[in-house]
C-alpha cells in the first residue's frame, strides 16, 4: 500500500514538526514520520527538561543566598527525584501538545522508522511491526543529532553519562567530571554545582564556551571558578575507566602533564553527531560533509526533491534554527511570496548556566577578522540599578556595530535572564536598526535591559551611567 503526499517530513523534532505544520497550513498533503518522541530531543531530552532542572538549581542558589536578604534557614532537604519528576512531567505534557498541534493541522503522523527509496518513495517500518510505503513529491530530512562520543570514552549509561542520563539522575553525584564546555557542558556543570556536586569542567580549547566572544568566555570562567567549579582549559581527557572507588580519568594538559582524577560520574558533552545512518542517503547519493547533510540556504540537498533542516544539516545545532529552516524550506516549495532563508550568523544562541549567556551575530574577533570597522560598546551590570537591587549584578552587555553602515554586527550578554533580553537585539538586527536609532529607543526604568541601551550608547561614546 502506497500513500501519496506532497511532503513527507522525517523526524518530529522542532525542525520537522514545525515544517509539517506550516506545510499543512499551506494546503499541502503532509506526513510526518517519527521513530520515538514527537518534539524530538529539544522537547524530550534537551532544551525544555534541562530548563526544568536548571530552575531547581536556581532555587538552590536562592536558598544559599537567602541569608543576605534576612532569611535564616535551617538544614534544607533536597530530593533530586522530585526535581527529575517535574522535568519529565513538563516534557511529557509538551510532547502531547505537539501531537495535538499536528493533528489539528491535518498532518498524518506515522510512528516508525523511515528509509528513503528511489523516486520519492519512503519506506516506513512502523513501530507496530507493519511496513508502509509513502510517496512524496518532496521529502524533508529532519532527523536531528545525538551526543558525540570520543575514542576511549564510551558512555555506559550508568556512570559515564551523556545528556540523556544526566537529565534523569537517580542520585546527586558527589563528584562530577564534565567533558566539554559548550552550551550543554556548561549548563550541566552549573546545574550540578548549584545542586551540591563537586564539579570539574574540562575543555580542550583555551577557554570555556569557545564559540562565544572571548569576553564572555573569560567572564563565565571567572564566575565558575569563584563558585568552586574546577575549570581546566587546554586539557584533554585521555581515558575514563570504571574503578572500585569511582571512575579513574586521565587528564592530559598541553605540556603532556598527566593527572589522574577519580570522580563519581562523568558527563560527555563534546558536541553532537548527525543522525544520517540507515536513511538510505548513500544509495540515493545525498552528499554529506563531515558527518552532516550538505544543503543550500533553502535546505536543498544534492538530490532533487530531498531537503534537510536542523541539526542533521549542520551547526549551529539549535531548535529555533531548525524551526526557521523548516518554515523557510516549506514556504519556498509552496511559493509563498517573501519566504526568507536562515542567515546562520543571525541565529541567536543561549546558554542557561549561572550566569546566563546570550548572543547573536559576530564575535568581536570575527567582525575584525572580516574587516569591519567596528565600534564596540560595553556596559557592566555593576552599574545597573535593577541588577543590584535583586543581588544579581554579575554580568555585562557588549555590542559590536559596523561604523560604516551603523549595522548591529553582534551582541553578547552575560547575566540574569539575558536569554529573555536577547530578542530586543534580534528584532533590532532583523529590522536593520542602527546604533543611533537604538539609542533613541526608550528603555523603561528600572530594568536589567537598560544595560543594553547603555552598551549601545557606549559604542557611540555616550554612555551615561559608567
Amino acid at each position, binding site marked *: 500500500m502506497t500513500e*501519496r503526499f*506532497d*511532503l513527507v517530513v522525517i523526524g518530529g523534532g522542532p525542525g520537522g514538526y514545525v515544517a509539517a505544520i506550516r506545510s499543512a497550513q*499551506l*494546503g*499541502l*498533503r503532509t506526513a510526518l514520520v517519527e521513530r520515538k518522541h514527537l518534539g524530538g530531543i529539544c522537547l524530550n531530552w534537551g532544551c525544555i527538561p534541562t530548563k526544568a532542572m536548571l530552575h531547581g538549581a536556581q532555587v538552590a542558589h536562592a536558598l544559599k543566598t537567602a541569608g543576605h536578604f534576612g532569611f535564616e534557614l535551617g538544614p534544607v532537604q533536597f530530593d533530586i527525584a522530585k526535581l527529575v519528576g517535574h522535568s519529565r512531567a513538563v516534557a511529557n505534557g509538551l510532547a502531547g501538545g505537539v501531537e495535538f498541534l499536528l493533528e489539528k493541522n491535518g498532518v498524518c503522523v506515522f510512528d516508525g522508522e523511515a528509509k528513503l527509496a*528511489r*523516486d*520519492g518513495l519512503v519506506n516506513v517500518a512502523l513501530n507496530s511491526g507493519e511496513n508502509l510505503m509513502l510517496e512524496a*513529491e*518532496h521529502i524533508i530530512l529532519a532527523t536531528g543529532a545525538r551526543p558525540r562520543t570520543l575514542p576511549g570514552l564510551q558512555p555506559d549509561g550508568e556512570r559515564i553519562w551523556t545528556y540523556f542520563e544526566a537529565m534523569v539522575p537517580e542520585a546527586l553525584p558527589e563528584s562530577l567530571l564534565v567533558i566539554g564546555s559548550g552550551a550543554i557542558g556548561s549548563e550541566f556543570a552549573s546545574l550540578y554545582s548549584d545542586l551540591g556536586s563537586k564539579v570539574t569542567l574540562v575543555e580542550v580549547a583555551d577557554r570555556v564556551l569557545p564559540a562565544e566572544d572571548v569576553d564572555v568566555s573569560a567572564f563565565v570562567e571567572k564566575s565558575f571558578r569563584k563558585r568552586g567549579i574546577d575549570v581546566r582549559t587546554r586539557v584533554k581527557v585521555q581515558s575514563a575507566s570504571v574503578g572500585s572507588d569511582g571512575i579513574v580519568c586521565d587528564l592530559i594538559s598541553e605540556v603532556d602533564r598527566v593527572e589522574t582524577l577519580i570522580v563519581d560520574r562523568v558527563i560527555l558533552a563534546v558536541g553532537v553527531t548527525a543522525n544520517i545512518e540507515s536513511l538510505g542517503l548513500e544509495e*540515493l*547519493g*545525498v552528499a554529506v560533509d563531515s558527518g552532516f547533510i550538505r544543503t543550500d540556504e533553502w535546505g536543498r540537498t*544534492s*538530490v*532533487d*526533491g530531498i531537503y534537510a533542516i536542523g541539526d542533521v544539516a549542520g551547526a549551529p545545532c539549535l531548535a529555533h534554527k531548525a524551526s526557521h529552516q523548516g518554515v523557510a524550506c516549506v514556504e519556498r*516549495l*509552496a*511559493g*509563498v511570496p517573501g519566504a526568507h532563508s536562515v542567515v546562520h550568523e543571525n541565529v541567536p544562541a543561549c546558554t542557561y548556566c549561572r550566569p546566563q549567556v546570550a548572543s547573536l551575530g559576530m564575535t568581536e574577533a570575527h567582525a575584525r577578522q572580516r574587516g569591519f570597522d567596528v565600534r564596540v560598546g560595553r556596559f557592566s551590570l555593576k552599574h545597573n540599578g535593577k541588577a543590584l537591587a535583586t543581588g544579581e549584578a554579575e554580568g555585562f552587555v557588549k555590542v559590536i556595530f559596523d561604523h560604516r553602515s551603523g549595522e548591529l554586527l553582534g551582541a553578547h550578554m552575560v547575566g540574569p535572564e539575558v536569554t529573555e533580553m536577547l530578542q530586543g537585539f534580534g528584532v533590532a538586527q532583523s529590522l536593520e536598526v542602527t546604533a543611533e536609532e537604538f539609542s533613541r529607543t526608550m528603555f523603561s526604568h528600572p530594568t536589567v535591559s537598560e544595560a543594553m541601551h547603555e552598551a549601545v550608547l557606549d559604542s557611540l561614546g555616550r554612555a551615561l551611567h559608567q
Partner: protein
Amino acid sequence: MNDIKRLDVPKWGLSMEEGTVTKWLIEVGDRFEEGQEIVELETSKITNVLEAPFASVLRRIVAEPGVTLPVGGLIGLCAQPSVRDEQVEAFLAGLDAFPDMPPGSALMALDKQTALNASSNSEPKPSDRAGVNVPTGFGGWRADADVLATAHARSYAERFDIDLAKVIGTGRRGRVSVDDVRTAIASAGGVAPAFGKSRVDVSHPLLPNASLRATPSARKLADEAGVSLAAIAASSGERIVRGDVERAVAVRSVAREAPEKGREPSRIVPLTNIRRTIAKRLQQSKQTAPHYRVAMNVEIDGLLSLRKAINAGGARVTVNDFLIKASSLALVGVPEVNVQFDGEVVAGFEHADIAVAVSTDAGLIAPILRSVDLMGLVDISRAVRDLSTRARAGRLRADEIEGGTFSISNLGMFGVSHFDAIINPPQVAILAVGRAEERVLPGTNGPRTASVLTLTLSSDHRVIDGATAAEFLSELRAYLETPGLMLS
C-alpha cells in the same frame, strides 16, 4: 383575447432541473408566431432555443440573461396589445404575492380579472418569503452593486432579495457580514433567519419568533438551530423553554437521518469558482470541438534505463517528465499540432508551451511549462514539481495557468491503463497517458516482454486531421523509444 400568458422555463429532459436565460432573441413589444425561436436557455448539459408555444406579443421580460430559474419558473409575460401595461404589471404583482403558485405546467394562463383580484387582495409586502420580512427600505438585491461583502452575506442577500448597499458593514474596511445584514433588517423591524441553518427549514415556514412566548435561552437556541418557535409546543405553562427547543432539534435531526428520507441528498456542495471554471471550459470544449482519438502503444524499456542512469546522479526525473520533453520535440516537429484555435484563426507557435494536469483538493488545474523544447529533462522535472506543489498550495500566478499549446494528463499512477481526455481550449490536442505495463510481445526469436505505455491523443478535427495526429504520435513514439534523441 385579453389573456396574459406566461413564458416558463421548459423541461427539456428528464434530468433537467433548471435553466439559465442566456439571450433573448426578441424584444419587448415584438410580435411572434407559434414555433418562432424567442429565447436561448442554457441547462447543465446543453444550450437550446425555446420555440414559442403560442403566438402573442412579448410584453415583459421577467428573467434577464444570466438569471437561473427552476423548471416552470417565469421568464416572461405575453399579451395582445389590447391589454394595458398596468394590467400586465398587476398580473406580475399578483404572482409575486403567491410565489408558490406557478409551477406544475409549462404554460399557464390566468385571466386578467383573477390576476387583478389576487393583486388587490394581497397586502403590499416588499418581500415575504417563508416567514422572512424584509422592510421596504432594504428590498432589492442587486448583483452588480459595488459593495464589499462576504460571500455568505452576498448569497444571503440574494436569497432574501436584500439590497446590500443599504447595510452598514462592521468588518474590516466596512465589509458587510451576514450578521450585519440581519442586524440591519432586525433594527428596521424586519425578520431575517439565521444564515445557512434555515435552509433545512424551508419546508415549514419560519415565522417571526419574536411574536411567541419563549425564554431568552430557548429563543437563542432556536435561532441558532434555525428552528421556528411556531413549530414548537410549550410543554409546561405558556412559555417555550430550552428543553422544548432541544427536543424539537433532536426530533428534526432524527427525521432527517431516517432511511425513509434517503432520497434526499446527504450533502449539497456548491461548486467552487475553480470547479465552475473547469466545468464551463470542459463543457464548452466537448460541445464545440469535434473530438476524435488516436491511440498508440509505446515501448519504454530504453527510456526506463536511461531514466535510471540520469537519476543515479541525484535527479528525480519521472516518466512523465520524459513524456513532456518528447511531446515538446514532437510538437516542434509537427507544428500543425503546436497551435491554438479560437474558432476563427489558427495561431501557430515556435516553441511548445505544455500544460501539465495536476489534481488538487480544489480540482484539476493545469499549470503551463513554457518553451519546454528548450529545457533539459532535469530542469523539466524540477519545474513540474515546483508547479504542482505550488498548485496544491494554491500559489500559482495567473500567467502560469493561461494559454499553452498542448496538454498532458497522466493517470498512470492510479493504475489506469488508458483513457480519453477532453481538449483544453484554445489548445487543439491533449495526450492521455496510462500506466506502463509489462506485456508479452511476439519477437523474431520467440516471445519477448516489454514495458508498454498506451498513449491516447484527443484532437480537434476542425484543425487537426487524422493523418496529422498519427504523424504526431509516430514522432512522439520515436523520441520515447529512442530516448537518446531527446538529449541531442
